[in-house]
């Protein structure tokens, strides 16, 4: 399997006038195509920082980060935007859909920034909304949907550019547990279709859906379990 993410000696140090905080220190790991990885850790462990670096939302203080063959740590702002657009599909805890805007338009947004022609945008957005089970709610404004439905719109939006990785930050943190299971079922389905998923969570029950769990604490990887038995059996 091809390597999608190659992180070598990643460190992130936040500096204020008086204080230096090390959020990540010397973290190295690799993620291969088709993996479903959960990053676990208590708050303040550095997992959010790691997620921001993996998501090209932030750059490391030192170390190298190669995403799908491109060295991310050297890139400037607009190049990072481009990388995020083409290679990363974000799923946020707070959904982050455009308010009062239809599901369809929300899903089309990344394709607008990629310069994809309108007809193709519409076709692809519809395809992915149907895939997440919202074929009958495409014209609903985001605020007219339930939490679970909003997160499914976000998943469709993340998939629509066919990114190298799907990056989910506490994807079930803001939704009811029954709906959370549905979201995880969709995650497993798209993982089975070959999409690489990196999911940040602090809930062990959610992390169990992944094939591999990276435990992080005090900015360091303390356990990297590539254990298939951990995966919950779907029924």
């Amino acid at each position, binding site marked *: 399997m091809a390597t999608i993410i190659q992180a070598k000696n990643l460190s992130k140090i936040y500096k204020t006038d008086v204080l230096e905080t090390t959020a990540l220190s010397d973290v190295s790991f690799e993620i291969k195509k088709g993996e479903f990885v959960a990053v676990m850790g208590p708050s303040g462990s550095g997992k959010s920082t790691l997620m921001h670096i993996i998501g090209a939302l932030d750059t490391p203080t030192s170390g190298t980060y190669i995403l799908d063959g491109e060295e991310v740590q050297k890139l400037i702002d607009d190049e990072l935007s481009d990388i995020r657009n083409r290679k990363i599909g974000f799923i946020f805890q707070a959904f982050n859909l455009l308010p009062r805007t239809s599901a369809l338009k929300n899903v089309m947004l990344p394709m*607008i920034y990629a310069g994809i022609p309108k007809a193709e945008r519409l076709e692809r957005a519809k395809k992915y909304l149907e895939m997440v089970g919202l074929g009958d709610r495409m014209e609903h404004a985001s605020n007219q949907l339930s939490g679970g439905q909003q997160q499914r719109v976000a998943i469709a939006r993340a998939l629509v550019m066919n990114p190298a990785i799907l990056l989910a930050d506490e994807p079930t943190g803001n939704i009811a547990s029954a709906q959370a299971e549905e979201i995880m079922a969709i995650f497993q389905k798209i993982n089975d279709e070959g999409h690489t998923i990196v999911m940040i969570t602090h809930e062990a029950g959610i992390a169990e859906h992944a094939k591999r769990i990276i435990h992080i604490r005090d900015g360091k990887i303390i356990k990297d379990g590539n254990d298939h038995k951990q995966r919950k059996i779907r029924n």
Partner: protein
Amino acid sequence: MEYTEIITEAIGTLTVNKLRTGLATLGIVIGIGSVIALVSLGQAGQQAVESQIQSLGSNLLTVSPGSTSQGGIRSAAGGATTLTLADAEAISTSPQITTIEKVSPEYTSRTQVTTGRTNTNTQVIGVTPTYAEIRNITLASGNFISEQQVNSIAKVAVLGPTVVTNLFGEGANSPRFAGEAGPIGQTIRINGQTLTIIGITNSKGGTGFQNQDDIVWVPLSTAQKQLFGADHVTSIALEAKNPDVMVDAQNEVGYLLLARHKLSDPAQADFSIFSQQDILGAASQITGTFTALLSGIAAISLLVGGIGIMNIMLVTVTERTREIGLRKALGAKKKVIITQFLIESIILTFVGGVIGMVLGIGISFVASSFINLPFTLSSSSVLLAIGVSASIGILFGWYPAQKAANLQPIEALRYE
């Protein structure tokens, strides 16, 4: 990403968020509308004052008979009868006088004017045709006193609108009445003489000194010979060529009259020349005050309008910092985001500007007709209002947008 796509996205955002768009537009409408309305009203006031001053005649000199001293007894000012028609003719023909354009000898007296049924006490002025030119008299109907009528001592009279109302009742000045000939052709009696009405003047309004509408004008010769039996004039109005030569004109006329009256000492002068220098001074002071007031009003309303626009733009754009973070996370480049927000600001200020302009013009039109001011609209004030407000709107739409676009997307996403 193409510009048409960005424009579509900007319009989409504006139409989806109707309340926000409406509030921002309202802010701009009020900002621009109030500036235009205030400045336009201020200018209307200034124009009204200027035209009232203008109607007095700004380069006017008045020669009145002064006091005479005979054997140490000084008579009341204006009581002398030393000023004659010949003096007036000398002023208009003398080669020494170079600065006077028009000369209007006048004989003024207060007396009773009657028709068959009604009567009124009013001012009767004997004049020559020059009077109308100097005093800016215009006629609502009929004609003013002609040269020929002065020469032939014609028994004709021109009435001010107040006199018409007093003698013929309310409505006698109305166009309908005038269309049916009205008072013209009818007769009035003054001191036992019957005079035919040949004209009615337009209203000039009271100007503080006297009611310019409550006057009966007759030919100078008629006033002197038929009505009052006098051969002197009570004043001579002079119009200087321009306001700058008022002092020269005063001196020229003064020396000429001293010579004609065989007086060597100016202190002995049996006449006085009242220039309207005082009025001119007051006028320039008033217009100066108005200009300052107007600039103040414009500056304050621009400031208030500008701050309003600034606030609404700052708030609406800052509120969207999270949205900007999201757009960046999904792959929008800085330039694309800033362009979109700039286009939104331009659309808002343009739409708000047009509505505000219409509203401001409408308000000043209604208000000026309510408080009886001439409606004025200067394109410079409209341009100033729209120019300043639009640049403020665009600047404060752009500024927070570019600030948010320069944030790390993750910081913008966390923004509360």
